[in-house]
């Protein structure tokens, strides 16, 4: 008698073993260390920390190793771990005006106080495969001057704000929702939107941001400022009554200057879009800033016509852990639903008593 093929416990166990073997690869090649990933794949680590919404380089590197380099899977691993962590407190807002910069640029002014700093970037590299990297060996690297003096770098958009040329962003002082603890409800506040975008898939935000540049919700952006560097994180425990620094994190911040708004009662002003990511994650921060601005369409009474302007569309679909999960669930059995559809389609076809396809082809 036919026995329906259904996976048992043994099949699952075996699949896990085969996966472990696949991840390890040829055992005659040295095993990849978590610290190697952390040191030598820092951009992958940054992406996993950002979209995993947990700043921990070691755990992100571990997740990348465990996921065999599948970054969306690594993000999922980190998220699932993050859920189990207790929340002690919320930090004070970080002050990015005060950060230790490793890269900073503005496309809006030729020179700005504090200057421009290219730093570690792929920009202006010729994308030619460097075959010298095939040969392993020490890379001497450039010697950075120790204790290079750093000028204070006020934020570029702050300079515009002083002149009243850009919309002021005011802290309303409202309690900020945590979208990982409370369900997102529409319409979402800007704080909720920014949280969702910060966790959002880099590729999705990149594509949506790109779509605004091609006319789907156009709002003419300039890269007002991109800064990458270390910033201190402060908390203020209730029992202490004064703030203490708990460490420093590397972040990428992008502020876009966008087309101005104005009305009969209000002089024209530029507007802004904001992007923030952990680590060195410029593409993510820029995509996020573009989409943040396009989602402010309603606030600025712009006509909402394009996907990047529709918050339900963007926020409900930007999370790659949710998206990957729901797409991959199609691999689960759907025998029952499919059987229901089969029964239905046969019933719907009954009135048309034509020849069946196999009769037509004479097989």
């Amino acid at each position, binding site marked *: 008698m*036919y026995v*329906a093929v259904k*996976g048992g416990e043994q099949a699952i166990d075996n699949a896990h073993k085969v996966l472990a073997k696949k991840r390890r690869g040829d055992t005659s090649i040295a095993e990849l260390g978590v610290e190697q990933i952390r040191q030598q794949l820092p951009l992958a680590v940054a992406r996993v920390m950002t979209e995993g919404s947990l700043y921990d380089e070691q755990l992100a590197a571990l997740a990348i190793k465990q996921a065999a380099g599948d970054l969306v899977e690594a993000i999922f691993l980190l998220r699932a771990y993050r859920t189990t962590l207790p929340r002690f407190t919320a930090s004070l807002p970080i002050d990015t005006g005060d950060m230790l910069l490793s890269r900073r640029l503005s496309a809006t002014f030729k020179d700005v106080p504090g200057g421009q700093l290219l730093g570690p970037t792929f920009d202006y590299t010729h994308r030619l495969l460097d075959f010298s990297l095939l040969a392993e060996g020490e890379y001497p690297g450039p010697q950075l001057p120790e204790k290079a003096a750093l000028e204070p770098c006020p934020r570029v958009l702050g300079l515009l704000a002083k002149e009243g040329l850009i919309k002021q962003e005011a802290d309303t002082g409202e309690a900020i929702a945590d979208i990982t603890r409370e369900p997102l409800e*529409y319409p979402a506040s800007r704080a909720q939107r920014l949280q969702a975008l910060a966790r959002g898939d880099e590729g999705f935000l990149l594509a949506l941001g790109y779509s605004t540049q091609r006319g789907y919700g156009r709002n003419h952006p300039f890269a007002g400022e991109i800064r990458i560097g270390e910033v201190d994180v402060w908390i203020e425990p209730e029992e202490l009554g004064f703030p203490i620094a708990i460490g420093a994190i590397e972040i990428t911040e992008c502020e876009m200057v966008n087309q101005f708004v104005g009305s009969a009662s209000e002089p024209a002003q530029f507007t802004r879009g904001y992007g923030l990511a952990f680590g060195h994650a410029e593409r993510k921060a820029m995509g996020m800033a573009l989409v943040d601005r396009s989602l402010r369409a309603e606030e600025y009474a712009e006509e909402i016509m394009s996907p990047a302007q529709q918050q339900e569309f963007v926020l409900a679909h930007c999370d790659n852990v949710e998206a990957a*999960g729901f797409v991959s669930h199609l691999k689960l059995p759907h025998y*029952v639903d499919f059987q229901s559809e089969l029964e239905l389609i046969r019933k719907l076809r009954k009135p048309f008593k034509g020849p069946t396809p196999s009769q037509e082809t004479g097989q």
Partner: protein
Amino acid sequence: MNAATQPRPGRDEAYNFAYLDEQTKRMIRRGLLKAVAIPGYQVPFGGREMPLPYGWGTGGMQLTAAILGADDVLKVTDQGADDTTNAVSIRRFFARTAGVATTERTPEATIIQTRHRIPEMPLSADQIMVYQVPNPEPLRFIEPLETETRTMHALNDYGVMHVKLYEDIATFGHIATAYAYPVTVNDRYVMDPSPIPKFDNPKLDMSPALMLFGAGREKRLYAVPPYTRVSSLDFEDHPFQVQKWEHNCAICGSHESFLDELILDDQGTQSFVCSDSDYCAQRVLQGENGQ
């Protein structure tokens, strides 16, 4: 062996009982109380990330985790069967994190988590069904905006749903929905019963068991309390009908259960077997036979 109840295994102490922390479970139980108080109403809840992918039952798992007690006996089915891979995986998850007894026998379970089916055997008042829900909003495929559908529910404005069903009849001669067939709960809210075949819809009506529905990705939960009217949407001249098969189950001979179709060879020879593996196995034990 197949239908045996597995005694309580040792619990993995590295995690809280049933994985979620107590505060989260309490938050979910509060949501469930609201859901029971307003049958069929979708309650938003702070869904957590589970260590299984979204779309694989994270909503159902969170509800199960929230209501599970040490003495519960858990049954998990997927497509009606206890031995499908995802059912095995979820059952193992709770055996490991909660150390609860598990069973494949419907009558012996106190909590039954399910994907896409309601067991064939009648449920009792001391049982709770937990459904895994992909899309909790029955109006979603007619109106994609949440802000709109929420208003439609609030205003009891379900005209578009009837228009959709009418258009099916006009186009195909039948209502072209075979699973996740919308129902009205307690004469008020239109509800998605999860992607169960419409064959199972009548089992929701006046059931003695509590029915809980969890959608993890969409962060919604809802409920049908025991002995609540659940009616499938239809028209007077096109009454709701369930699927019927011309075949019997090849294993137990049942003519009443939902049958899965198997294709046996390259010529497309069909065979039909019960989708509910426990129902089928019990009938075989009682001496029923397919051929």
